[in-house]
């Protein structure tokens, strides 16, 4: 514990997709069914080309400038089951291969567990949790869940220190998913709330507070992932704790983010906390982890996470939401008969440059992507070895652009064009997060990791970078 006390949260980051479902109008679309669906707030909706890996990258990219000792990828909805996403994430972040890595899965609590392990080990780590979970249309989860990611960096000289913790492990099943039931199966709500609050939340929080030497009433802010709504209110009433639960605010504004939910809520709690405040982080799933932190100053990245909630674009068509969440499958016709097969040997040879978006600088200083034996620069006429230059974190400008409505895209139109980086690199790129008026020549762009190709028949994805506008619209004003 002594070692962990010297460690804490060095930084935090989050990512939410641009698109939002306004639950109220959406519920009206299903009112005929009589199903009791949430009507307030928004849920985030991932683009067709976003998945837990791409969102984990976005959440963690600001935390991985200096290589950590370990990189951990956390998700209950990871695409691959025998291909470590932490390894792909490591290459996407252009981290050295000697950085340890691991995937954590099978519980919404996996993120807080990984964080606690890092803190107890005194290990400087980046822990990135992300979810894009399959849900059945008509289920409460279809409206309640959201897509998104959160990441933390542990390290010395922390802005928020761990001062106490407690873990309870229990095979308590509030809901589950399985290979044969990939969408969540929830059990009766009152049973879950009563049991979870009395047998898991309250004992774990009391124990964590005892370890920290404080009463629960001393908790100023909470990030408590709830198994069902109002769990925190019930626990807090019993604990005489008046702290707001930022996970509840997050669930209303963006949806339940699964394994990323307590970590994203923690970012919101840290953004609201004042120096000296105690903050509770509670991860729930097959038991719970309760962690008490003491905040000494603003945690880097927390304020930015709070701003993410108010940025986005509302989906106007309910069927688009259904399509993006896989609830309906449109027949896109012959245009969609487009299948690519990625080759492992090519990925082994060039994959790091691709997913890391690493170009090469020639002997004149010009940068190009991809690299080539003979540089593209016309003043050079022979082979040379190019120096690595990462383009993922550079801004760029549109040279030419179109909104292609003939080409197949699962969420048309297909925006693509030539993109010019300030360092000389020019790349033909796909665009994402189309602004209301479309893209225009001269627009400035930032880079986002996305799925490049998806081969459903072979169950494989490749990833590459796409270009997005620098800024997002404010939600409701888009």
């Amino acid at each position, binding site marked *: 514990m002594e070692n962990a006390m010297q460690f804490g949260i060095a930084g935090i980051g989050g990512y939410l997709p641009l698109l939002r479902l306004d639950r109220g109008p959406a519920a009206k679309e299903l009112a005929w069914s009589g199903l009791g669906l949430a009507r307030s707030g928004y849920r985030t909706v991932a683009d067709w080309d976003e998945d837990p890996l791409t969102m984990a990258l976005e959440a963690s990219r600001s935390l991985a400038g200096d290589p950590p000792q370990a990189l951990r990828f956390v998700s209950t909805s990871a695409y691959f089951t025998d291909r470590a996403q932490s390894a792909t994430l490591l290459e996407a972040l252009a981290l050295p291969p000697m950085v340890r890595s691991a995937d954590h899965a099978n519980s919404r609590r996996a993120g807080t567990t990984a964080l606690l392990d890092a803190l107890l080990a005194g290990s400087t780590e980046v822990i990135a949790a992300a979810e894009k979970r399959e849900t059945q249309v008509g289920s409460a989860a279809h409206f309640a869940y959201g897509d998104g990611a959160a990441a933390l960096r542990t390290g010395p000289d922390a802005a928020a220190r761990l001062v106490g913790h407690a873990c309870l492990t229990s095979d308590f099943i509030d809901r589950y998913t399985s290979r044969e039931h990939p969408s969540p199966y929830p059990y009766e709500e009152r049973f879950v709330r009563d049991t979870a609050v009395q047998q898991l939340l309250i004992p774990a929080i009391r124990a964590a507070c005892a370890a920290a030497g404080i009463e629960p009433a001393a908790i100023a802010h909470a990030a408590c992932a709830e198994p069902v709504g109002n769990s925190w209110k019930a626990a807090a009433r019993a604990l005489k704790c008046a702290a707001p639960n930022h996970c509840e605010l997050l669930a209303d504004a963006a949806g339940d983010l699964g394994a990323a939910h307590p970590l994203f809520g923690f970012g919101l709690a840290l953004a609201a906390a004042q120096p000296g405040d105690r903050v509770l982080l509670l991860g729930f799933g097959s038991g719970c982890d309760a962690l008490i932190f003491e905040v000494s100053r603003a945690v880097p990245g927390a304020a930015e996470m709070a701003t993410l909630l108010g940025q986005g674009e509302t989906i106007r068509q309910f069927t688009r939401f259904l399509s993006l969440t896989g609830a309906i499958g449109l027949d896109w016709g012959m245009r969609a008969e487009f299948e*690519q097969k990625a080759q492992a040997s*090519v990925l082994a040879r060039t994959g790091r440059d691709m997913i890391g978006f690493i170009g090469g600088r020639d002997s004149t200083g010009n940068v190009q992507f991809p690299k080539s034996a003979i540089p593209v620069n016309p003043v050079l006429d022979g082979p040379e070895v190019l120096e690595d230059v990462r383009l993922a974190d550079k801004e760029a400008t549109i040279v030419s652009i*179109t909104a*292609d409505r003939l080409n197949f895209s699962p969420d048309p139109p297909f925006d*693509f*064009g030539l993109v010019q980086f300030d360092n000389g690199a020019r790349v033909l790129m796909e665009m994402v997060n189309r602004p209301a008026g479309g893209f225009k020549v001269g627009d400035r762009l930032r880079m986002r990791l996305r799925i*490049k190709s998806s081969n459903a028949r072979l169950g494989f994805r490749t990833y*590459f970078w796409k270009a997005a506008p620098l800024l997002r619209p404010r939600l409701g004003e888009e």
Partner: protein
Amino acid sequence: MASGIKDKVAIIGMGCTRFGERWDVGADGLMVEAFAEALADAGIERASIEAAWVGNALDDINVGNSALPAAHALRLQQVPVTRVENMCATGTEALRGAAYAVASGAVDFALAIGVEKLKDTGYGGLPLRTKGVQNDLWMPYGSAPGTFAQLAGAYAARHGIAAADLKRAMAHVSWKSHQNGAHSPKAHLRSAVDMDKILAAPMIADPLGIFDCCGVSDGAACAILTTPEIARSMGRANPVTIKAVQLSASNGWEMQFGEWDGASVPNTRAAAARAYAEAGIRDPRAEIDMTEVHDCFSITELVIMEDLGLSDEGRAPADILDGRYDKDGAIPCQLDGGLKCFGHPVGASGLRMAYEVYNQLQDRAGERQRGKVDLGLTHNLGGSPFNSVAAVAILGRLD
């Protein structure tokens, strides 16, 4: 210094099928149809063909790869047949190969034939499965209109032209080709379309509406080449000859190096400059009587007019709207309807262009005949504006 190909090769026979949705015939039948017309035109026997170049761009989804589909279809008896592919510039590439064979003295009679049978495949200008396993990892595969649409925004940005003004000039390009196509018996689309309909058409790739785009077709076209001396010995006193055939391919500069502004096609300029030099043309605006250019999209033809030096920089929209390239304009373009209306069986298009010029040079174009034509230019463009193969050929009479 190379002396070039000017007047070293004569065209003594050409054939071209009706383009369109040829549900009635396969690729082999299309080749036979074009070849039979060319043989009759040339007045030679099939056995005289000593070498052949067959152009087919999308071999894996229609005709099939290698020399064999053409050798089988035409029953060429143990003749060296070479299959060539250079995207939409494939037809001119076949012509170039056959012309070089004759010019070198390797053979007396060579055949260039282009064919595409796309309507059986559902192909509509969309990207194919792969552009190589390495490119697949990063390159976005937009549709053909998607790549060429980008010329419009870049052109407007370079010249400060309003989008609506550019769109109107683009619409005139298509309007003119529909007017001309209506008089081409072998054209795929043979109806005139008014400007309002063109301007109001559904968007395919901003700012290209459906009438700004050519479709794809089934079809074949071919040419039989020999030397001018042999042509004369066969009774052609003043045969059609190749004045120039040039090709330029991107090396990645447009796509990867930060100099090009996307508002022109540098390979067209390079191929045209070399072709003019090869043909001895100093003032193309005064010397070229007609053009058949690669109007895959209206904006492409507009930009080509500047790339070929026929319009001043930034003046193509005004020249187009002034009727400079209409059938009765100073330098008519697409007298046969072009890709837009005659059709675009990809591998055949370059030879279809040559077919129209060949007929115009010999006063054989019927109601489309543009009076006396001494020099005609074909321009055939493969790929995209940022990664292209451009071919320019100039045809005339020997004397």
